[in-house]
């Protein structure tokens, strides 16, 4: 790598760290509510924290909890979590050409994908800034871990997360990423299409599938004239 490229990587990484901070703050609160709910679902404090550290995928963690809370078994919980995660397949496919190195190195870099980082590292021309991706993920990983520690250890003092309105955090988190996309009018119709398709599938598909299916709306790009 040349010195110029090295500098560029460092600048992008630092910019990512800064951009990641607001998402890290919100992630702290989300992970805190996960910690509380996990303890209520029968996880030990250690188990709740280990989940945040080694899974590090909020929607999957919440999906697996909601399945076991209503009495589902391990296979059902893992299926629900994987369906919620299935959007990372689409995100990984999109990101793949921007990652250098052999398969193992690419697999490792792929682990840094979380929703906010993927969206922010997206240059909008089909390529991704991988150092910005790594930088944005780092503070989110740290706060995800800390939030879960606080939730799992002190959760009993907090009480009912539903009554506290903590379930409003998750949609607002995604909304902030969506709104950044919608500032480009060209994105609005496909966004609306994806949203409507997902909503239409809610009653007939297991949770998570509507989100993956919505990504099919992006195939509209095949017929759209290159701008």
């Amino acid at each position, binding site marked *: 790598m040349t010195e110029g490229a090295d500098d560029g990587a460092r600048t992008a990484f630092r910019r990512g760290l800064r951009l990641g901070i607001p998402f890290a703050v919100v992630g702290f609160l989300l992970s805190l509510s996960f910690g509380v709910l996990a303890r209520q679902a029968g996880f030990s404090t250690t188990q709740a924290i280990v989940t945040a550290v080694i899974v590090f995928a909020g929607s999957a963690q919440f999906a697996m909890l909601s399945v076991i809370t209503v009495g589902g078994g391990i296979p059902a919980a893992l299926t629900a979590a994987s369906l919620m995660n299935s959007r990372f397949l689409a995100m990984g496919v999109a990101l793949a050409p921007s990652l250098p190195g052999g398969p193992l190195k690419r697999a490792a870099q792929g682990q840094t994908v979380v929703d906010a980082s993927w969206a922010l590292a997206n240059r909008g021309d089909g390529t991704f800034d991988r150092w910005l991706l790594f930088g944005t993920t780092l503070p989110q990983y740290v706060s995800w871990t800390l939030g879960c520690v606080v939730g799992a250890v002190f959760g009993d003092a907090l009480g009912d997360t539903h*009554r506290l309105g903590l379930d409003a955090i998750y949609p607002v988190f995604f909304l902030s990423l969506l709104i950044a996309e919608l500032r480009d009018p060209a994105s609005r119709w496909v966004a609306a299409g994806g949203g409507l398709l997902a909503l239409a599938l*809610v009653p007939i598909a297991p949770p998570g599938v509507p989100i993956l299916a919505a990504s099919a709306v992006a195939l509209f790009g095949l017929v759209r004239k290159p701008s």
Partner: protein
Amino acid sequence: MTLSHNEIWVLILGCAALTMAIKAAGPVLLGGRELPSWFTRVVVLMAPTLLCALVVTSVFASGRSWSVGAQTVGVAVAAVMLWRRMSLVLAVLVAVVITAGLRAL
């Protein structure tokens, strides 16, 4: 219900392994290649569709049914704040306070 302590460990490790495999799949199978132009045009549209689907399902869906409630109101107010470029952290706090407030009524 209630899984045993060991069953929960199986669940956690299984979930971690599956998540890693899902995140690795795209980069391993498709990495290190040139982008065909049709691929680029599809990728550009993926962020708005995926994000919009995540927002609508987290606001309007509860399991397999549609639902609205206090949370919908809180999120709607946050949406206006975000569109006006107010900070994410502030928008989240307002959404939580409104949601909790409406539920306390």
